[in-house]
């Protein structure tokens, strides 16, 4: 169906299917913004409704959150480097940086799981109150996205190892890099409006 194949430029943009997939993914990300903003809106509206459970200020630990934030920020950076390597045509560089990204992502997830378990021990769960429901679902949805991203990237790594850089694999890598950066953007807002504000107010 594609008439306009390009001869130059980044691989992922050469086929018209590649360009369309990337555009479609941008549109999907716009939808994801609305999805997360609905969760943020719910969180904001339910803020303070902790019922008899502890308040966020009592539970949040700045150090854990900071470590998580840095893990994700660095992983976003290494993911950017991975795409940079891809555009230089280096499969090895790409795979290496992508793996580093995933390890950082796993680290983030580990801390998040630790955090949730910790809260459960402190006596707050999804069921505790409206506030805590919205907290767990907002951060949990982000965490779920990270998990899916990791699984997806692993599939991609296998394909990269098998096929090397083609218009199709590079398009896939580019798309997952968008996804990964996007999750970082969401986290910035979680960090700010959930953790920082939760500790301030």
């Amino acid at each position, binding site marked *: 169906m594609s008439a*306009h194949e390009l001869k130059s*430029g*980044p691989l992922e*943009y050469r086929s018209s299917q590649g*360009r369309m997939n*990337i*555009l479609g993914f*941008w*549109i999907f*990300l*716009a*939808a*994801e*913004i*609305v999805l*997360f*903003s*609905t969760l*943020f*809106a*719910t969180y*904001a*509206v339910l803020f*303070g*409704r902790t*019922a008899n459970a502890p308040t966020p200020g009592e539970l949040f630990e*700045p150090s854990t959150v*900071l470590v998580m*934030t*840095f893990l994700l*920020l*660095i992983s*976003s*950076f290494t*993911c*950017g*480097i991975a*795409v*940079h390597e891809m*555009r*230089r045509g280096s499969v090895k560089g790409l795979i290496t940086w992508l793996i580093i990204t995933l390890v950082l992502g796993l680290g983030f997830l580990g801390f998040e799981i630790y955090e949730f378990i910790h809260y459960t021990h402190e006596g707050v769960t999804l069921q505790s109150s409206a506030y805590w429901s919205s907290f767990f679902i907002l951060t949990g949805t982000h965490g779920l996205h990270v998990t899916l991203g990791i699984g997806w990237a692993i599939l991609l790594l296998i394909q990269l190892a098998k096929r090397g850089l083609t218009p199709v694999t590079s398009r896939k890598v580019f798309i997952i*890099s*968008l996804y990964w*950066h*996007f999750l*970082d*953007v969401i986290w*910035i*807002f979680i*960090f*700010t*409006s959930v953790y*920082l*504000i939760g*500790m*301030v*107010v």
Partner: protein
Amino acid sequence: MAGHTGRFPVKHVIGFILSIALTLLALWAALGSDLPTVWIIVSIMALAIIQAGIQLFMFMHMIESESHNGHVPWNMIFHGLVLAAIVVAGSLFTMYSGHGSGGDHDGDMKHEQQQEQHEGHTEH
């Protein structure tokens, strides 16, 4: 774009340093400074928005002529953010106007007061 083919990913490194700096700044504003709460919230939200912009423009290649997608990605993300603002602000606006949430036994309370009550919210 220069950054793509060169050896050193200048743009990414600058973006990275900026985002670390902004994060630390936000952390300081929230926990270290003694600004009034409202100002803390405003300023750290502003910092978050700047940082999101860095990700979008410096990491995510949102505007790249090679993509042949024109301004569409930018346009969609922009509208996504507008919608996000509508959803968040609109929800707070409607859910906390008029009847408020922390209605007290005194039914005569004005709605501004109720709103404050809600924000404090410890008495329940």
